[in-house]
């Protein structure tokens, strides 16, 4: 069972790494939110896999569902924000937002 847990958490960490790499290096705002989505996939995989391995799958499922709801609200708000930024700057380049620096 420990091997199975190791396998799932290994891949979950990999997903988090891929998302973090994109967040740190890319410039397109939509790509950055795709990266946030990839990270959240890694986290939900870790939650459900740990629940399955530790015989707590019902609790893990309810946590995963709560996480999905939070994720949807986050994405809806973030994408609305991206559309507004695009209307103002006519670009999705994150470097243009450095104008906001005080």
């Amino acid at each position: 069972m420990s091997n199975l847990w190791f396998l799932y958490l290994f891949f979950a960490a990999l997903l988090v790494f891929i998302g973090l790499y994109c967040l740190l290096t890319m410039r397109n705002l939509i790509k950055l939110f795709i990266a946030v989505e990839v990270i959240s996939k890694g986290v939900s995989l870790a939650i459900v896999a740990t629940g399955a391995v530790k015989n707590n799958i019902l609790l893990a499922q309810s946590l995963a569902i709560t996480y999905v709801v939070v994720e949807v609200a986050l994405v809806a708000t973030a994408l609305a924000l991206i559309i507004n930024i695009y209307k103002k700057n006519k670009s999705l380049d994150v470097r243009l937002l450095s104008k906001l620096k005080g």
Partner: protein
Amino acid sequence: MAIQIILLCGLVIFSALAILLKDLIKAALSLAVASLLLGIIFFRLAAPYAAVFEISVVAGLITVLFILTIALTKKGDEVTEARLVKLAFPVFLILFLVIDGLVMKSLLQKIPALPAGPEAGTFGEVLWKQRTFDLVAQVGVILAGVLAVLALFRKKEEDKDE
């Protein structure tokens, strides 16, 4: 076990494609396929409710939101990424794979896990009785999201006068 490994590899490959593909529509579709694979993994872990939410909400709704945003921001593809990003990705990935393989096993033994016995009851009982406060918080989060979107798309006073 072999099927699980294939599904997990597919999940990682499509997630990486979602990040590396230049065409944003293709990237969003890769993300949807990754969500679908994650949903199948959840089904195989005996978590059908989480799987249904993952497939219907994340693979369905969020992909539609992404594609809608990409359509509304037509020049989004024109953002130039640094060349080194895609070239350096495999190097960093292999480096992380090695570190992950070496560290994760010892890390798992050190994580103090709560003693867990077999669960009693049904999913509904756990969700409604044990996690009631989560449900209240979910309603709050959804309301906050709706209000935020409404505020962001609010028309200016001048627009109304016209």
